[in-house]
């Protein structure tokens, strides 16, 4: 078995707010191997995006990483200085955002931005960098890439911009790409195109992919493994088939049941009562407890995360792995 490319150990990221400290990520551990795709699924406020930003070292005050380790090829990213982080970013680790304008500078031509990204990490002459930029656009399915190179971001459609942002992310053949809802804002037909191209490119290059999304159906199509987040913690993690076909955590099961595709047309959908917790003042013990039908007395304590291929954080799972021991919250 190969050493993991990325390993998170008990990551904890905190934001200071007017109302008090908010732990957006409370205890997240997972590993990702080269060439693997991990789908990180959660609803808004689950901490899935903050996890991605934490790995990229993009947490700005009033937020900061207050605990845990982020091991990339064995080096702890939380202890690296800004310069070493910069050398990793855009080179070995790249990120694709929901809004491509987070990547693209509106006043620079596409070519300038792509060539800059290449030359920031590699000494290569401008002409060769330009050729590589053009090929990268072509590989993302952008028609007449030579002409698009000289365009400004605002001259492109939303889907085209996202393709360019992805091409920039992939241009230095990174080991790891973190994709934060990159297709959520796009039309269905464009979303499918981008999914197809990202899938192909990462498979060819053996790039590991951390795909952050709220959409289980998208994840089902591309991920090898799924981690479901709720209130800053991973509550269930395992192979895509195991988690989607035999969900063990009541939250995962509820999430799958609430998808319109999962039940007969016209029938009432399974609904999880209530709303996601206030993260400044989260519930004691299992954070899903107040919304959970299987809640019992012991849920007032924080369940630990089981070991194994199908991991779980629940005292009363629906099936599957044995229930975990209690841990100090």
């Amino acid at each position, binding site marked *: 078995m190969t050493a993991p490319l990325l390993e998170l150990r008990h990551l904890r990221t905190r934001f200071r707010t007017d109302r008090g400290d908010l732990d957006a990520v409370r205890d997240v551990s997972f590993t990702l191997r080269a060439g693997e795709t991990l789908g990180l699924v959660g609803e808004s406020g689950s901490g899935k995006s903050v996890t991605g930003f934490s790995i990229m070292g993009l947490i700005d005050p009033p937020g900061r990483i207050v605990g845990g380790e982020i091991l990339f090829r064995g080096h702890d990213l939380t202890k690296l200085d800004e310069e070493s982080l910069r050398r990793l970013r855009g080179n070995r680790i790249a990120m694709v955002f929901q809004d491509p304008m987070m990547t693209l500078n509106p006043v620079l031509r596409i070519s300038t931005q792509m060539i800059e990204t290449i030359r920031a990490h590699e000494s290569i002459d401008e002409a060769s960098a330009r050729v590589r930029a053009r090929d990268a656009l072509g590989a993302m399915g952008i028609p007449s890439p030579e002409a698009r190179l000289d365009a400004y971001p605002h001259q492109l459609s*939303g889907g085209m911009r996202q393709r360019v942002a992805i091409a920039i992310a992939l241009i230095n053949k990174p080991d790891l790409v973190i994709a934060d809802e990159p297709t959520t804002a796009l039309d269905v037909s464009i979303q*499918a195109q981008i999914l*197809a191209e990202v899938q192909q490119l990462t498979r060819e290059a053996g790039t590991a992919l951390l795909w952050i999304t*709220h959409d289980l*159906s998208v994840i089902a199509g591309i991920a090898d493994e799924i981690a479901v987040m709720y209130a800053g913690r991973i509550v269930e993690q395992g192979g895509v088939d195991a988690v989607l076909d035999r969900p063990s955590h009541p939250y995962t099961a509820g999430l799958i049941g609430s998808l319109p595709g999962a039940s007969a047309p*016209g029938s009432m959908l399974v609904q999880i009562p209530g*709303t996601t917790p206030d993260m400044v003042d989260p519930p004691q013990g299992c954070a899903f407890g107040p919304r959970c039908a299987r809640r019992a007395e012991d849920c007032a304590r924080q369940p630990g995360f089981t070991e194994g291929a199908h991991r779980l954080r629940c005292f009363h799972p629906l099936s599957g792995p044995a229930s975990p021991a209690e841990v100090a919250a």
Partner: protein
Amino acid sequence: MTTKPTTTAPALETRNVSRRFGRAEGLAVRLHLARRRPVIHALDGIDLTIPTGEFVGLVGESGSGKSTLGRIAAGLLSPSDGAVSVFGRDPQGDRSVHRDVQLIFQDPQASLNPRMRVASAIGEAPLVHGIVGRAELDDYVCAQMRRAGLDPAYRQRFPHQFSGGQRQRISIARALAMQPRFLVCDESVASLDVSIQAQILNLFMQLRRDLDLTYLFISHDLRVVQHVADRVVIMYLGRIVEDAPARQFFAHPNHPYTQGLLAEIPDLKQRRRVYAPVKGEIPSPAAPPPGCHFHPRCPVAFDRCRIERPALREIAPGHRSACHLNDAPEGERRAPTGEIA
């Protein structure tokens, strides 16, 4: 009420409705007091009838004109050409239509006035329209909130104090307070989390049963539409390309665009799949392609598609499609497939 009650009139009927945006003419433009703007054909000859009690899902991508059609149905926009009637009345001439048709927006945060308490947001319109008197207003507001699944104890709060799902319930309560018979939902669950989306969809289905409502449910999400709708209407660049009963639609999609869309829906049951998407970009509605708008992306387009607009015609009972291939002799017609090569 001066209007004649027309029980048999459909909830919505549009005849050859078109809508253009932009400004090429006008006094202000001619006097150089305002700028000329490009004209966008948001809707182009829409014929659609929604009988009372039906739940119609209207699906399209950006630039399809689905929201424009929704706003015309709700009386918020007037058509540039063609005739619209809502329960047999013209929404432009007859303001009482506003009581019968209500629009639910995508973003509940934006559709609620941030400086108005929930009770006033819900109670204002019924009070102004005389649906309820000032004395009974408070009870009326509480009843609407309860029906939308909200605790009336919080009616003196402001919208920003609620979660996304609760805010959408507030806007639903506000619409219900007008006692409408027809709801136009414009991407009303698109911005909500999956578990909250299920709650709101259930509420829509529950209300339909309780209040006998008609729905025009606008969405980009075919999975959601498949779950709730009786009939599906697909739009592309301002035109209806297909219109069919839901069961028929998902079993036998006719139009190449529709078939492509259905093949692309991410599906929980399909693992490690290979996507075979419709090729190409969606053209700009400011300069749509001639003939059939879909022909540049269509895998089976032929010469006629580049010149002549295909008519939306009935190909099976209740099933309309706008594709020249349906004119081909029976033997040559391509079998309906789920995917495009």
